[in-house]
C-alpha cells in the first residue's frame, strides 16, 4: 500500500511523538533516588535522537526526494555526529 503525502507526514509525526515518549520513560528515573551515569541510557538517548533527526530530515524536510548529494550530505553529517557523540561519551 502506498501512503499519500499527508499520510506519510502523519505517520512521521506519530512516530516522532511516540519515540519522544519512550525517551521520557528512559529519563523518568529523575527524582527516584540518586541519579548515576548510565551508559545504556546515554547510548539509548543518542540512538533515539539520531533516529528522530533522520525522520525529520527525510520526511518533514522531504530529503527523501532530494538529489543524491543532499541525501548523502545529511546522512554523512548525522553519521559523523553520532560517531563523535559516542566517542565523546565512551572513549
Amino acid at each position, binding site marked *: 500500500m502506498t501512503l499519500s503525502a499527508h499520510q506519510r*507526514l502523519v505517520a512521521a509525526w506519530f512516530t516522532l511523538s511516540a519515540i519522544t515518549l519512550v525517551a521520557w520513560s*528512559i529519563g523518568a528515573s529523575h527524582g527516584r533516588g540518586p541519579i548515576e551515569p548510565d551508559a545504556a*541510557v546515554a547510548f539509548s538517548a543518542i540512538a533515539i*535522537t539520531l533516529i528522530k*533527526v533522520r525522520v*525529520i530530515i527525510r520526511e*518533514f524536510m522531504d530529503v527523501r526526494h532530494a538529489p543524491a548529494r543532499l541525501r548523502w550530505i545529511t546522512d554523512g*553529517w548525522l553519521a559523523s*555526529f553520532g560517531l563523535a557523540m559516542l566517542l*565523546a561519551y565512551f572513549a
Partner: protein
Amino acid sequence: MTEVARARPTSSDDGQERMPGQSDMWVLVMIEAITFSSYFVVYTIYYCRSAEAFLRSQSQLDLALGVINTLILLASSWSVARCVERARAGDHRAATRNLALTAGGGLLFAALKLHEWSVEIGRGNFFSTDEFFSFYYFLTGMHLLHVLVGFIALGVVYYQLKSPARRSLEVIETGATFWHMVDFLWVIIFALLYVMR
C-alpha cells in the same frame, strides 16, 4: 502562481528528484548543524569529566516540561510540512491555516522556555551557577534565538502565501526548511540536557 511555482512539481511523490527549497538554505542548515554538533560534543566531553555534578544539576530540570516542549515543536514541524504539502496542491487557504498552527506552536514553545528559565532562576540556578547550567542557558538560549529567526522565516512564508501574485513554492519550502532545522536541533538538545546520563 509564479513562474517558479509552475516550474516545480506539485507533488513530492512524483518519483522525481528535486531540491526541497533553495540550495543556499541547505548550506546554512549544514553550517548550523555542524556548529551545534560541536557544541553538543563539547557538552558531552564536559559531562563525562564530572558526570555526578552534571546529573545533580540536571535532576533540577523539569523533564515533563522538556517533553511537552519537544512534542510542541514536533507538532509545529509537522504543521509546516503540511503547509508545504497543501501549497504544492494549490490549497493555499489550508496552507495558511497550517502555517498559523506552526507559528502558534513556536510561540507556545518560546513562552514555556521563558517560564522554565524563570523557574530555574527562582531556584537560584543562573548561568554562572555551575558548568551544567552554563551549558543549559547557552544551548537553550542559542536555540531560542533560532526560534525567533524562525518566526521571520514563517513571516516570509506567510507573505508568499498571502498573494497569488508572488507565490513561490521554492521560497515556501525554504522557510519551512529553516523551521525544521530549529525542530531537530531542539530534539538533540532535549536528549542531552534532559535525558542523557
